[in-house]
Each structure stands twice: as C-alpha cells, then as structure tokens.
C-alpha cells in the first residue's frame, strides 16, 4: 500500500481551486483535488417542481439553516447543514455563514457580478489612513483580471472609472432604456459614475468552476479528483517544516485516510481554509490568522416604481437593464461619519411586483399588483465592511462537526462605520430614485447580519511583513513555502465589490508563481 506523492494537492473545487487546477495542470503539473462534498448530477439530483408538491409549501424547512436567509424548501439540500458542520458565534453577534460543499462549491451559485478592485481598495491606507495597503496594486493584477474576464465571458460597457477599472469585456452596446436614462442623468448630475453592469455570461448560462475551469484541467490528463472527503488536518514533515499532505476522512464511511503531496494549495473557501490551518496549528507565526474578517454589507436599498411604465402594454422601451454606480463617497470628498464607501446596483425590472411593496391585502392588493405590473425598479447597496483585527474566527472549545473536527467560532460585528454608511446609502438611493421621478415604495437602511453577502474575506491576509500577515503577495505562506492559500482569505481589505473576479485573478497569479517555483525546483 505504498503511497506515491502527488505534485500538488488542491483542497477545494470552487472558483479558486478550479483556477489553480487549470493553471497548474496545463503547465504539466500533476494535481489531486479533494472536495468535502459529492458531485451533483443535475439530471438525477434536481427536478422542476411546484411549491404545492413540497411538504412545507416552499418555505424553508423549520429547524434547518437558520443562518441561511437564501434558503427555501427548493434549495435547502444545497447548503451545508448547520447541524452537520456547526459553528458558534459570540452572544448577540450572529454570523450568516453560507456554505456549499457540492463539487464546484459556491461557484455553482453566484450572482455573476464581475467587478475589479481598484487602487482605492488595494492602497486604501495610503488614501485614508485606515487599515493596511495590499502588497500588490491593480497594475499587478490587471493582466490576470483580463484573462479571467475572457474565460468567464464578462459582459460590460467600454467605460470605466478610477474606482472601478474597466476590463476585457464583451461590450454591450444596446441603448439604455428610458428608466435607466433617467437614473443615469440623475446620477451624473450628482457627480456619480453610471456604468453598465458587469456580469459573467459563462458558457450555456453557467459560470462555474465545473464548466469553465475544471474541464480544461481534466482534459490535460494531469488532474484527478476525490469527492466526499473531509480534510481534518494538513500534515507537516518534521524534518523540513514543510507541508507534505493531508489527513482526511471519508464523508460517508468515516474511513480515515491520508495523502502525500509536494505542495498544498488551499482553496476551501475563506473560513474553511482558515479553520483547516488553525486545526493544523501551522503557518501562524504572525498570530493574525483568523483575524481581519470582513465582507460587504447587503440588504440596504430601495424598491420603486416607474410611473410611466404602469398600464402600458409594451413598456420595453421604458423598462429593463442594469447598471452599477461605483463608490463615490470619500473619493474626492469626505463623508461626515464614515470612511470608505459603497456601490449601488441599479436594476430596471420587468414582470410582476412583489406584494411586500404595497401596504394592502386582498382585492386591493391584487389591484395594485395589476396596476404596477412591469414598473419595478431596484437600487441595492454593496457597502465595504472595514477589516478590523477584532473581527475574527478561532477554533471553538466545544463544538465539533459530524466527523469530530473542531468547529469554528466566529466573533464579528458591524460598527458605526457600517451602520452610518448604510444609512447614507439608503438615503442616497431614495434621493436618486426621487430625482429620477420614481415612486419609492419601500426602503431599508439596516444591513443584513455579517456573512449574508456570502463574501467572507480576510483571516489569512497577505502582506510584505511576516509579522503582520499570514501570506506573502503570491498567496504563499510566509512560514511554509510549499503552502498556498488562494481563496478569499488573503484579502487585506474587502472593498465594496463582489470579490469573485479578484479571487480568480489572485488564484491564477499565485498558481502561475507556484508552477514557476516548481519548475525552478524551489518548491
């Protein structure tokens, strides 16, 4: 039963793990990918159903997934069961950790918003004095962003702003609809950029690791994958101090196994990668592992109606389309009670309005739903959450998961900065809608609990100083040279943008670096 060492062990199969596999295998490096969950087969595992066919009529099954606001009865089996893989939170500080362990991870389910970070994020401290700068700039990552945008077929406009750099897009040239033109005019009057939405088209409607990245890796003949294995710890060679593999348990049979590897790439998702490192008790000479947890605050915004679109048989010239207003606060001016800022997602809706938009019921509600049909307009907020040392995760004292692996304890909360930013954003969104002549139907200024955006970031941040960071600028452990962490845990600051493109670009850059180190015999 002698075991052969694999070149690179990749833990996780989502966007970051898939990118690592693609880059490494196409350079001739053999990889084995471990994934904690099974491989989904859409034809076998899904079926189109009506809510009336389900025991709970479509509601989230009681007692399950209390932190997953996105869950309902249709998708409840997709998310990680909170009893099977528990985590704990500090009292009064809820955290919504939303996880997927299917092969492909959360890359199977994401909103496709494809934004770059700018140097207002990479060099945030230089701009406003808070936190730390990243050890890289937009210029360092730009070539990788371009490749990722090409792979994922990102659609966007040909305009850009310093706070939202443009990219390698499939240019959209369709004219703005009338409702969008009005918000565009109101935005520009206020001094805001109004840019076309940037979204990954992917292939056949899917923009996942499993259909964009992994097929190329498998085609190379250099990648093999093992589903249904939960990694317990990384193993370390006592003589060299390098990682040399992993101990894992078969999810279904509980069989304990191990695998040997020359290098390890962690891509299990921000908090799972950090949990694994903390449980392994390695790579933390800085003491900052687990700290600086951040994300974006979501849930704030307004829903409106465009009066001219009501009762019009064909309102396609008025309604439809999406845009993004990149951060404008604290760029050239200074907000009163918060630093950093937020972006706005602008969506001109078609189809029925939601009943929640009207304070009525019964026949009166139906009358309003009919009248307002096809006139909905949404402005949603994506706010930067500051990276603070005190917002952290650690291994809890009591809880373990279904395989006896110690669970994570999360202690994080939003501060006045996030709450003040959210209030400002809600007011700004409402003002923008009113300036556009829209009727504001409902508004919310309170952010959802931390974690809700499913954009957890930080906890293994990168930096030039090994005393204050876990990883170097190549996503490589300062302490252990053959250990790389390529998911969102390397983020120094969260920014207001959806992080997917940045995670992919970082993973590509890091994996190319690792491949070169392997070629040179350094790793």
């Amino acid at each position, binding site marked *: 039963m002698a075991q052969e060492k694999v070149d690179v062990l990749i833990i996780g199969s989502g966007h970051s793990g898939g990118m690592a596999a693609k880059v490494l295998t196409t350079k001739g490096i053999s990889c084995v990918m471990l994934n904690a969950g099974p491989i989904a087969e859409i034809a076998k595992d899904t079926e189109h159903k009506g809510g009336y066919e389900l025991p709970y009529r479509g509601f989230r099954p009681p007692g399950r997934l209390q932190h997953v606001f996105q869950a309902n009865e249709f998708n409840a089996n997709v998310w990680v069961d909170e009893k099977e893989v528990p985590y704990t939170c500090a009292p009064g500080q809820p955290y919504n950790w939303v996880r997927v362990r299917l092969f492909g991870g959360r890359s199977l389910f994401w909103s496709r918003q494809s934004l770059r970070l700018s140097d207002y994020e990479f060099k945030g401290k230089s701009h406003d004095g808070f936190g730390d700068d990243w050890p890289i700039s937009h210029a360092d990552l730009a070539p990788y962003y371009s490749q990722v945008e090409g792979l994922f077929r990102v659609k966007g406009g040909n305009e850009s702003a310093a706070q939202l750099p443009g990219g390698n897009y499939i240019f959209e040239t369709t004219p703005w609809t009338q409702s969008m033109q009005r918000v565009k005019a109101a935005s520009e009057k206020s001094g805001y950029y109004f840019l076309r939405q940037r979204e990954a088209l992917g292939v056949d409607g899917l923009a996942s690791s499993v259909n964009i990245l992994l097929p190329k890796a498998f085609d190379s003949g250099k990648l093999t994958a093992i589903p249904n294995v939960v990694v317990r710890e990384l193993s370390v060679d006592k003589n060299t101090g390098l990682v040399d593999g992993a101990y894992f348990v078969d999810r279904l049979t509980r069989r304990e196994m191990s695998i040997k590897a020359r290098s390890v790439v962690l891509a299990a998702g921000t908090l799972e990668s950090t949990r694994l490192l903390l449980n392994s008790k390695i790579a933390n000479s800085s003491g900052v592992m687990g700290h600086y947890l951040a994300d974006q605050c979501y849930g704030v915004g307004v829903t409106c109606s465009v009066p001219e679109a009501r009762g019009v048989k064909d309102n396609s010239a008025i309604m439809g389309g999406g845009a993004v207003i990149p951060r404008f606060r604290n760029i050239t001016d200074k907000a009163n009670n918060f630093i950093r800022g937020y972006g706005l997602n602008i969506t001109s809706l078609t189809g029925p309005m939601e009943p929640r938009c009207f*304070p009525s019921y*019964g026949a009166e509600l139906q009358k309003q739903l009919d009248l307002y049909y096809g006139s909905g307009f949404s402005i949603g907020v994506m706010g930067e959450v500051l990276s603070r040392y005190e917002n952290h995760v650690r291994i809890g004292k009591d809880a373990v998961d279904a395989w006896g692996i110690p669970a994570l304890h999360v202690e994080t909360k939003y501060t006045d900065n996030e709450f003040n930013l959210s209030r400002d954003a809600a007011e700004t969104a409402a003002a923008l809608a009113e300036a556009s002549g829209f009727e504001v139907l409902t508004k919310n200024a309170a952010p959802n609990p931390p974690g809700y955006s499913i954009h957890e970031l930080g906890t293994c941040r990168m930096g030039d100083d090994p005393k204050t960071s876990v990883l170097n600028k190549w996503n490589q452990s300062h302490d252990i040279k053959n250990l790389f962490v390529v998911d969102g845990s390397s983020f120094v600051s969260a920014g207001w943008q959806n992080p997917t493109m940045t995670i992919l670009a970082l993973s590509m850059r890091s994996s190319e670096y690792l491949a070169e180190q392997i070629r040179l015999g350094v790793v």
Partner: protein
Amino acid sequence: MRRRDFMKGALAATVAPTVMTAQTSSPVIPKTGTIAPGPLPWMQGLDHGELPPVRTIDIDGIAQPSEYFFHSTQTATLVRLSEVLVPALNGYPGAIEAQTPAFLDFFVGKSSPEIQLLYRNGLDGLDAEAKTKYGKPFAALDTAEVDDIVKPRLATWMPDHYPTPTEERFVTVAHHDIRMATLNSPAWASVARNGDKLPTQGEIYWYPVEPDIYRN
C-alpha cells in the same frame, strides 16, 4: 476472495437446475449480491421498466392532525385573519379553501421559538384589540372591523427586513406566510391546472445529494 467466488459459483449451480426443472424455456441466472432464500433474486424485475402508478391523495384531504399548536381562540383568529388577508379571488381559492390556517398551525408549531412567540402574541393582540374596540372576539368581526384593526398595522418591507414594531411585524409576517402558503397549496395548483390559469411558478428542487448516512 477465492472462497467468495467459490460460494457464488456453488449457489448458481444449485439454483439453476431447480429453475430449469420448473421452466425449461428460460433459465434464471441469479445476480451476485442479491441471493434470496427463495427461488429468485430479491431484486428480480426491478431493473427494467416503470412500476405501475399508485393513486395517492393529499393528506389534508382525508386526515386530521392529532395535535394543534394554537389554542382554539388563536386558531379562530388565524382563520379570520387568513380569510380577510387572502380571500378567494378571480376564480382562485383563498386561504381557507387552501387550508392555509391548518398548514400554518403545523408549520409555526415546528418553527423557532421566536416565530412561535410572534404568532401567539400577534394573534392574542388582535383578539384583545377586537374585544376592547368592538366587545367581541376577532373571529366574530365583520370585514370592515377587521380592516379597521389590521390596516394600520400594514407596512411595506424589504427582503429579510420585516418592520420592527412587533404588531406591524406580526401582521406583515402573517400576511406573507398566508399568501405564500395559499399560492403554493395543492388547492391553488388544482384550480390552475383545471382552468386556463397559470399555476404559481415552480423552481428547481434539489434532492439530497448523496446524503451523509449519519445525518440525523
């Protein structure tokens, strides 16, 4: 390994002649792993073709719950509230026809303590106000009287952010739940199927994907 192969061969040898004696036209070769104590493998016949359909009935159409979460006054209040918030309209069934109050009794009874408290206090609050204002239970109010109590409690809201004041919160949550349970009811779907009306939009349903055998 050898012993197992030998056993399989021995079993096949003893079964085959027996079957051939009874039916000379089609000898049966038992499949490995499903050796039954009788003449044929247990799984015989299951590997080809569809099983005949089974006619089922919706459980609420024939059976009664053995236990209830709400007490009788709360149930009566919920029934009246459901009747007014989601009445039968445009040929579609309302909450009563959809048996939504009974569903919510079950659903809330299985929900978190916070939701249970919200419903219980909310229903009690409506009934108390009805008695104070009109000297009769909420369940006995006419529609105008229900409107008088419920409408001031209505508020618009954003997803995941129900109104904060408890009374508004309850009416908003209850309205959402009653409406959703009604639109996703078998009764609603049945009317939609039988007429030219559209059923509520379905979604992709995910079955458990290789569920962990130890999951409780």
